[in-house]
């Protein structure tokens, strides 16, 4: 199996993403002295990046099935996702969340046939 990209293009994506990410990491470490602090407004906005971004990554995966909205109990990924969310909330543990979600999905796909 291959992706829809030329191999060179994929490497370019990896490189550009890596260089950009590195620049974000280095930014204030390198600039310290010239620019001591993130402007207050920017800092306030950055605080919400993880919650907004991660949620945007998670929710569509749970509520879409085969490209269509599927907000019903017949969608095993929605139920397994809800179960995993409960476990994540209780344990805050990656492995426990993974195990609960995957086991839930396997069981539900088996039951719903």
């Amino acid at each position: 199996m291959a992706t829809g990209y030329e191999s060179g293009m994929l490497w370019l994506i990896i490189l550009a993403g890596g260089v950009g990410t590195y620049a974000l990491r280095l930014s204030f470490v390198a600039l310290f002295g010239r620019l001591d602090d993130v402007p207050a407004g920017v800092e306030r906005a950055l605080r919400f990046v993880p919650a907004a971004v991660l949620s945007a990554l998670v929710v569509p995966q749970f509520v879409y099935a085969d490209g269509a909205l599927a907000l019903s109990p017949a969608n095993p990924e929605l139920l397994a996702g809800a179960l995993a969310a409960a476990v994540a909330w209780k344990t805050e543990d990656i492995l426990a969340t993974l195990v609960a979600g995957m086991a839930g999905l396997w069981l539900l796909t088996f039951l719903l046939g």
Partner: protein
Amino acid sequence: MVARQRTLRRKTKDDTLPTTYESVVSSPRADFLSGVRVAAPILLGIVPFGTVAGVAAVGVGMSALQAVGMSVVVFAGASQLAAIELVGRNAPATVVVLTVLVVNLRLVMYSASIAPYFQRQSAKWKAALSYLLTDQAYAVSLLEFESDEETSRRWYYLGVAVPLWVTWQAATIVGVLLGARLPSGWHLEFAVPLVFLAVLVPAVTDRATGAAAVVGGTTAVAANGLPYNLGLILAAVVGIGAGLAVESRSSTATDDEDETRSPESEDEEVA
């Protein structure tokens, strides 16, 4: 026999001398090792995350070399998984790169927060230490730097960050090897949102971050059909706006009580 005992004893005494010295005045080695000790339990947590990154990368058709290359070059889990998903959907290359950067924006916050402690490092060391900056390395090191003035910044940080790096790469390789062998009926792609979920939940700490999550998630669902897969970027912007709106409303309501809270402490666990 007696002579041997004496040399033995003397040897022991000589050996313990530098150790005692180390525990009084911190040495690079001792600081590195105390970093390693604190990082050890965190390593366990990132193994499944890294493994999923490897499995997912080969799952969308990336080569083993590209999968591991991404872990080395980008070295930021959540953004890697987001990129892999977009690659699987054939999103435009610019959107993939932009998404990686949006997911990693929080690193700017860490960079600013840890910068004063790296101020006296040479430019070369600053460059090297920055490459290793992750959620976990940041959170653990900052805690130590704030409480202990004696510890060598560089070596303690490396003690935390280097094992994290090694574990991340090893876990990716395990994932690549596994991914090539796992049958598709196991729905392993579902592991990706599950990992995101596990890091999302601790990031929601108050009403404002909760609003950012709810609005970000809802927008992403509504914008799923957006051309060029721009949905995530739009959802991030709208979600952040919602968080800011709720925060400013509640801070006026509670007489600016929220303003004193440190923004860094909120997202320590996000990877």
